[in-house]
């Protein structure tokens, strides 16, 4: 006998479809999803979302989608694409969200690997891409599109509008009311809920299979941690294929029952952010950085009075803002009053312009965030925090607890997550939120998860004295210096690069006595700096070798050395000698990858002579390098590079402990 709705809705909230049905009955009238369409925010309540999702599931089933099938989902953040995930899960299928900006060839690997038969896509653009690779993916039997614009003349029978399928499903659901409830009842928490492909910077992308149980656990721990509830609002604008968006816009929304808001288009995100005023926000560091840049540029154009007021109160905020937000004692009474005044005059309006007036909690993850940037947002009263995780761990390994924010750690392990550091410094993680497996790759799965059930993250890190995890580098990049102490090149380079004058840095030290560095200055920032000091220069190479610039960079390096000296594990990694390169490292010269990551080995080989001089104590070195211009021609750049010593500091950790 098929299960009744009541049975399905029982107390078992262990799969996403059951969570959805529960929200529909518990808070059916509340808004679940919003989307700005034709200039107006359209809203769907939980019961409407449940009805739409059910109809979509029945429609998919009528087309032949069944338990164990994978459903590709490609497009911008559209409500119906989120619902499609749940519809697939209702039928025991697995949604596979894919990056909407991937080119057709990139998509064909995933389509083939996941044996996709059904794809739900946003619009004509995505349909065209799928048609392009259909030859190579013969399994693809149904393409369903959300937006009918431009689709009138596609007469292939395997292409259908989602509207049509939903309508078909509605009729099916009416005539077989028990069918879908029965399917939902069959779902088990240990079933695979979603498959997210890793970006594949090394080799082919891998499909990470996550179960209902793991994502619900991860979501619930985040929801409890920051006490999120049905009244919260979030803007869903990050790629649906990214684990971060899946956790925040799907899993947590389903668990906590808060509202997701889909922007009108990629270009309107800033306006939509202001209109919605989310209470909960998630963005990678570069988004926060762009926001700040926009503000700063607009402040430059403001009237003199406003500008002075802004700079005065920003200085106040830097002094005490973050401490006040953390509720720390020891802030002077005068500062408190000034901060309160600044809140009315500057910080409040600024938060409003940023669309962050209502934010209770904001997270950033995905890359290292500069301390200045981080401090800026916290100091104007936005509770920005960091988290640490990866696709394999549902993006939920460590979180920063309120009031215990450190700028250079990623916080404490989330509830129910076990984190330990391997002998080689690698971070190992165990818990409910780990991946079940890599799709069709038992070898990789076995390699990533050891016999004790620990997942090897590939990141190197350590716990500081307060139990906060600090991620320093990718484990494979971490080396040892000649005296045996830890050497984490990325960590040092990032520290240097957080200074706006330094664009790129490459440090050397593995197996060596000392750490030395190549520096690339930031042409814009240093050029500006030089102009304000009336330093004349003719181009990059000339500017880079100016004495004043060397002094400026030495100061930056020494500041970073001073910070490193406070770190017990990394105090030996202070940069002793450095030089400023005569040319910018460039992907066209194969020195950087297309995503602008330094190709360490290549750079070391190419500039071997410079490294030798750094370590031999020479004061300068002549170098001539071939460069490739944008039009494909090549030319030579040569210069006599100066090599400079930087001051280093004795380890400071003992003093701090006292």
């Amino acid at each position: 006998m098929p299960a009744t709705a009541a049975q399905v809705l029982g107390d078992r909230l262990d799969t996403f479809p059951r969570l959805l049905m529960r929200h529909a009955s518990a808070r059916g009238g509340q808004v679940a999803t919003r989307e700005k369409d034709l200039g107006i925010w359209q809203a769907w309540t939980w019961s409407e979302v449940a009805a739409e999702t059910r109809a979509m599931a029945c429609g998919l089933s009528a087309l032949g989608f069944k338990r164990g099938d994978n459903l590709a989902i490609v497009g911008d953040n559209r409500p119906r694409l989120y619902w499609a995930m749940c519809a697939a899960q209702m039928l025991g299928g697995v949604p596979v969200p894919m990056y909407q900006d991937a080119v057709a060839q990139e998509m064909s690997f995933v389509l083939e690997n996941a044996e996709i038969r059904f794809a739900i896509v946003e619009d004509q653009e995505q349909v065209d891409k799928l048609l392009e690779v259909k030859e190579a993916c013969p399994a693809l039997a149904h393409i369903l599109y959300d937006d009918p614009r431009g689709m009138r003349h596609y007469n292939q029978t395997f292409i259908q509008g989602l509207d049509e399928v939903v309508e078909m499903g509605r009729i099916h659901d009416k005539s077989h009311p028990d069918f879908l409830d029965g399917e939902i009842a069959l779902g088990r928490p240990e079933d695979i809920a979603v498959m997210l492909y890793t970006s594949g910077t090394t080799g082919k992308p891998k499909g990470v299979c996550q179960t209902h149980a793991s994502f619900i656990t991860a979501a619930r721990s985040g929801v409890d941690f920051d006490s999120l509830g049905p009244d919260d609002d979030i803007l869903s604008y990050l790629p649906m294929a990214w684990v971060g968006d899946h956790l925040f816009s799907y899993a947590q929304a389903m668990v906590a029952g808060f509202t997701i808001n889909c922007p009108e288009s990629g270009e309107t995100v800033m306006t939509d952010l202001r209109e919605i005023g989310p209470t909960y926000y998630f963005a990678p560091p570069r988004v926060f950085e762009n926001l700040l840049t926009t503000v700063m540029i607009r402040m430059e154009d403001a009237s003199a009075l406003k500008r002075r007021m802004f700079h005065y109160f920003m200085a106040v905020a830097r002094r005490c803002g973050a401490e006040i937000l953390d509720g720390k004692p020891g802030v002077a009474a005068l500062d408190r009053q000034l901060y309160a005044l600044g809140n009315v005059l500057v910080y409040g309006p600024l938060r409003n312009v940023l669309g962050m007036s209502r934010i209770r909690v904001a997270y950033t993850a995905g890359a290292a965030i500069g301390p200045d940037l981080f401090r800026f947002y916290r100091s104007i009263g936005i509770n920005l925090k960091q988290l640490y995780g990866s696709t394999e761990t549902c993006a939920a390994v460590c979180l920063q607890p309120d009031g215990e924010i450190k700028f250079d750690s990623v916080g404490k392990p989330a509830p129910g997550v076990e984190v330990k550091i391997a002998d080689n410094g690698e971070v190992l993680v165990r818990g409910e939120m780990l991946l079940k497996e890599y799709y069709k790759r038992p070898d990789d799965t076995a390699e990533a998860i050891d016999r004790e059930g620990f997942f090897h993250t590939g990141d190197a890190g350590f716990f500081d004295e307060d139990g906060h995890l600090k991620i320093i580098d990718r484990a494979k990049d971490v080396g040892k210096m000649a005296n045996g102490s830890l050497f984490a090149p990325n960590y040092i380079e990032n520290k240097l690069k957080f200074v706006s004058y330094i664009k790129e840095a490459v440090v050397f030290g593995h197996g060596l006595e000392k750490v030395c560095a190549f520096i690339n200055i930031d042409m814009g920032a240093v050029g500006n700096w030089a102009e304000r000091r009336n330093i004349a220069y003719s181009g990059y190479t000339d500017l880079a070798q100016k004495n004043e610039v060397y002094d400026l960079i030495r100061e930056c390096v020494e500041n970073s050395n001073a910070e490193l000296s406070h770190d017990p594990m990394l105090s030996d990694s202070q940069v002793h000698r450095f030089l400023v390169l005569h040319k910018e490292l460039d992907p066209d010269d194969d020195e950087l990858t297309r995503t602008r990551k330094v190709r360490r080995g290549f750079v070391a080989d190419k500039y071997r002579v410079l490294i030798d001089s750094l370590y031999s104590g020479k004061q300068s070195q002549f170098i001539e390098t071939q460069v490739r211009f944008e039009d494909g021609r090549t030319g030579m750049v040569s210069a006599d590079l100066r090599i400079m010593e930087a001051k280093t500091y004795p380890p400071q950790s003992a003093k701090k402990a006292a």
Partner: protein
Amino acid sequence: MDTGRKIGDVILSFENISLSFGGVKALTNIGFDVREHEIRAIIGPNGAGKSSMLNVINGVYHPQEGEIIFHGKHRRDMNTYESAKSGIARTFQNIALFKGMSVLDNIMTGRNLKMKSNFLLDAIYWGPARREEIEHRKKVEEIIDFLEIQHIRKTPVGRLAYGLQKRVELGRALAAEPSILLLDEPMAGMNVEEKQDMCRFILDVNDQLGTTIVLIEHDMGVVMDISDRVVVLDYGKKIGDGTPDEVRTNRDVINAYLGVAH
């Protein structure tokens, strides 16, 4: 090419049109026709009389000789108000938008002819005036969505890049829900990407809204790619008429464009 749309009967034709300004003959004995739902291009070197021809179509200029047959009715000339009323909308070679007004308001002005409520009701924004405004705004939002300019909805037009301004002007013309759309050099001064976008929008308008399009364009590549039929003018005379392929191989056209050895 897609053949979803059906090219219909002749809806507008010209016979022996001549137009002169004092002693200058701008157009001499021009005759051609426009079929429903087609994209008809008028090309020619500078000063060939292309813009004059467009101005004759929507009634800015009144030809001294010739006959215009519009929807079966024979007439001597058109007048601007009437032509707008009967569904002819246009854009201009040098953008003619209200620079200080937002994109939304500019497109809204395109609805002017469709607005019926009186000034008093509009002033107090009440009853039918309010309902009407909402209707018009809906229509305008559909156009904004169609042209993908949501992100600049509230931006003053004067602050926009040239290519976007062109798109807004197209939007304003579309707001009148025209049956015939006259485009005066829609891609002039655009970069390659903007041109591609504009081509796509013109094809979409033609295909999805069924609008007949008459366009003047300098860029031969664009014209040959998107037009169904092309008229070629030179010194106010018609020297070629036909499909892009026919025009491309026409000896007179080649001479007019490349010059001829005398």
